[in-house]
């Protein structure tokens, strides 16, 4: 039924395919939800590391389930690639009826695949990263809940269910940003993220109301291009703008991006999963899902989206140039890359948006996890000015991080190049102005990412490390030796971290002594074996295998993900074909020949190369003073954040004070007055209820007399 309406644009209404998999879609979000419930009940009992393994298994189960559904969709005919499973009616209210239903179509399954896939890897990584944390199981509880909410957002077959997931991921984001809530700054960052997101949520909510009011339904399968016919364009425009406001909030676009850099206060796996790979892309998902709205709204709406996107991309890239915190750079980079995705949505390159979303999920998760590994290895040091030369100490981290760097900088054949290039090509197709801004951003991206890599992994070590580098002998270890290194080093570093994390005075030697004694039983002999090497645990060290295995897997993905949608021939547009049933006619068509495409690609490569060379000149060769580039105004994010605060602290505060007064006196006055009236009236009336039967009988007779008297008076007059 709904399937046919979804596929109404196809020529021959093919018969509906059914399979046992149809009834299994709900299992995808169910697995992490069960993991969440299990951890809620028995998380503390399970403890470390079982709680982490359970959560990882739950997420892995979701990934496996997604693969099953994906295989089913692949096996089907092109027009039949949609499964709509309805579990039960959730909100029956007159004409308004919302089901708990799941829609597994190419778009949602493509997203679910990388969410569960990257999610599983990040879960695995977190087992190592969160080692020794007091709230170890709570962290995984939140992670599972997040994955469940995110899958609900993606797979929900109506706007309200998506909104439920939307709020769910927002709540998890809040929990996880302020995971180490004892530090005031972390708690504040969480609140900031939450409040800023509320602004976007307002737009989303009102958008849902308006959609129902206009179309009488909020089901995606009913909101097709056909449904848009006969509805005033201004209405659809308004709805599109409302949803765009929602997307801006969640996906950290101008001007609501301010929460994302602060969200880096959370543990690094959270930054990787929520604030880079998945949650922040849900705005792009929403826009893609609602492509019929954008197609039917006024022309200025897509243009606005494109300009906001590309503006954000440039804006954030300039800020990223001047950041010294390793995670802040990546945070602004994320904002910038999300801007690219919005640019793609705005110019109608939905495939490009999803393509970049996927590749970005891989390489940005990789970069974040790599930075987490660095922070881990550096004992909670995040300032890049105190790093340098780390590739000797952390070879695997360095190698994988470099892969991520090449991917984001747009070096072929790494994945980031292909997706970014596709977006830029479509931007040129739409408006050369968009293209130029996008290109400058690409140059800046290459620059600041190269700067980060050079500052962190190359050059001379700028941290106080004891002993000569030769004593480490990390390089050239055999495989077994490396593993041992990792086992012991990981344990030592983590203990140092946990014992000194808050105080910030890592007494390396004492921690190391403890670490050698307390190393895991399994790693015991390794630890003994390498005891000498780790007498000085203040040095950076490579991370345990649970941390670097995800790095390796992600770096492979970051290399090859470009293969999803290679531009060479039509046959290689796998992703475009895959997404066609969802986006169909709303995808923009290129208005020029292949030759232009290649020229544009070469320009993009050149821009990336210029950016990288410039960075090398500044940060490797030292030809230019970095202070000339890292302007204070950039470091402060163009002062936008401060402007918000001063506005809210100044004129805004008066408004809030007035609203608070209004609420306390007028609104509460009405409510309390009603209550007082009711209770006062009640205590007055209760005097009539004497409980004496004869009093009631008397009342009855008075009533009878009055009734007769009324009739008499009516006749007499």
């Amino acid at each position, binding site marked *: 039924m709904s399937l046919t309406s979804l596929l109404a644009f196809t020529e021959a209404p093919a018969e509906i395919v059914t399979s046992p998999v149809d009834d299994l879609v709900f299992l995808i979000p169910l697995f992490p939800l069960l993991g969440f419930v299990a951890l809620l009940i028995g998380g503390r009992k399970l403890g470390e590391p079982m709680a982490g393994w359970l959560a990882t298994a739950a997420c892995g189960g979701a990934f496996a389930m997604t693969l099953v559904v994906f295989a089913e969709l692949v096996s089907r005919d092109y027009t039949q690639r949609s499964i709509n499973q309805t579990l039960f009616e959730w909100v029956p209210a007159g004409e308004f009826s919302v089901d708990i239903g799941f829609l597994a179509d190419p778009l949602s399954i493509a997203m679910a695949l990388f969410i569960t896939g990257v999610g599983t890897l990040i879960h695995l990584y977190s087992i190592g990263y969160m080692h020794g944390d007091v709230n170890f199981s709570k962290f995984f509880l939140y992670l599972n809940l997040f994955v469940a909410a995110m899958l609900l957002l993606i797979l929900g077959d109506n706007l309200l269910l998506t909104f439920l997931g939307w709020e769910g991921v927002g709540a998890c984001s809040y929990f996880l940003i302020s995971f180490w809530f004892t530090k005031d700054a972390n708690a504040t960052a969480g609140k900031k993220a939450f409040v800023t997101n509320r602004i976007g949520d307002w737009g989303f909510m009102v958008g849902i109301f308006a959609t129902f009011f206009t179309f009488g339904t909020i089901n995606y399968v009913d909101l097709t291009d056909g449904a848009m016919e006969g509805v005033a364009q201004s209405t659809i425009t308004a709805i599109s703008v409302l949803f765009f406001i929602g997307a801006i909030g969640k996906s950290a676009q101008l001007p609501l991006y301010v929460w994302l850099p602060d969200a880096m206060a959370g543990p690094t796996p959270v930054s990787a999963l929520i604030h880079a790979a998945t949650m922040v892309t849900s705005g792009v998902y929403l826009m893609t899902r609602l492509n019929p709205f954008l197609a039917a709204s006024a022309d200025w709406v897509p243009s606005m989206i494109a300009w906001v996107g590309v503006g954000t991309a440039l804006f954030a890239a300039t800020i990223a140039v001047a950041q010294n915190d390793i995670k802040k750079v990546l945070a602004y980079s994320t904002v910038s890359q999300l801007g690219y995705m919005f640019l793609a949505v705005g110019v109608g390159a939905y495939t490009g948006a999803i393509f970049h979303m996927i590749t970005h999920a891989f390489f940005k998760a990789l970069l974040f996890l790599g930075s987490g590994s660095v922070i881990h290895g550096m004992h909670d040091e995040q300032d890049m000015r105190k790093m340098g030369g780390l590739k000797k100490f952390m070879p695997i981290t360095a190698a994988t991080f470099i892969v991520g760097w090449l991917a984001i900088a747009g070096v072929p054949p790494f994945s980031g190049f292909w997706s970014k290039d596709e977006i830029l090509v479509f931007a040129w197709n739409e408006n050369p102005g968009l293209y130029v801004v996008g290109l400058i951003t690409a140059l800046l991206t290459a620059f600041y990412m190269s700067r980060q890599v050079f500052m962190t992994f190359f050059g001379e070590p700028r941290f106080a490390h004891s002993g000569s580098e030769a004593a480490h002998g990390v390089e050239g270890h055999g495989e077994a030796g490396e593993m041992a290194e990792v086992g012991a080093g990981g344990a030592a570093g983590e203990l140092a971290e946990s014992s000194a994390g808050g105080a910030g005075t890592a007494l390396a030697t004492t921690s190391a002594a403890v670490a050698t004694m307390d190393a895991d039983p399994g790693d015991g002999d390794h630890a003994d074996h390498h005891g000498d090497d780790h007498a000085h645990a203040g040095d950076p060290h490579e991370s345990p295998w649970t941390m670097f295995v995800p790095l390796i897997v992600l770096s492979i993905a970051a290399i090859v993900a470009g293969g999803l949608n290679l531009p060479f021939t039509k046959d290689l547009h796998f992703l475009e074909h895959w997404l066609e049933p969802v986006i169909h006619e709303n995808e923009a068509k290129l208005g020029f020949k292949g030759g232009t495409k290649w020229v544009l690609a070469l320009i993009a490569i050149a821009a990336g190369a210029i950016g990288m060379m410039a960075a090398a000149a500044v940060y490797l060769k030292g030809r230019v003073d970095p202070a000339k580039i890292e302007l204070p105004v950039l470091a402060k994010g163009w002062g936008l954040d401060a402007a918000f605060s001063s506005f809210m602290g100044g004129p805004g505060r008066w408004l809030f004070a007035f609203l608070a007064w209004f609420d306390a006196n007028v609104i509460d006055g009405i409510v309390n007055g009603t209550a007082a009236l009711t209770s006062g009236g009640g205590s007055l*009336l209760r005097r009539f*209820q004497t*409980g*004496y*039967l*004869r009093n009631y*009988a008397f009342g009855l007779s008075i009533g009878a007399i009055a009734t007769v008297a009324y009739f008499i008076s009516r006749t007499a007059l």
Partner: protein
Amino acid sequence: MEITANWYLILSAVLFSIGVVGLLIRRNPLVMFMCVELMLNAVNLSFVTFSNALNDVGGQVAVFFVLVVAAAEVVVGLAVIVAIMRRRPTATADDLSVLAG
């Protein structure tokens, strides 16, 4: 002198008023019940009177129904009184005022 319908109706009114007064002044629930029966009889009497005066048998049918409902009411009412009296053998209507607001 002839007996007109008004005679019966006045008698019925007086009988009804006596029932009202009885209901209001007596405290024994059983007697109060009897007063209700008095009032019902007064109404029945006026029904029959009107039936006769207006030459319509419908009034008599109404009386029939009043009788049936009165019987049902007495059965239930007396059962309630029995249930109360079993717990409090000396209770008057005034003692049963627990529903006071």
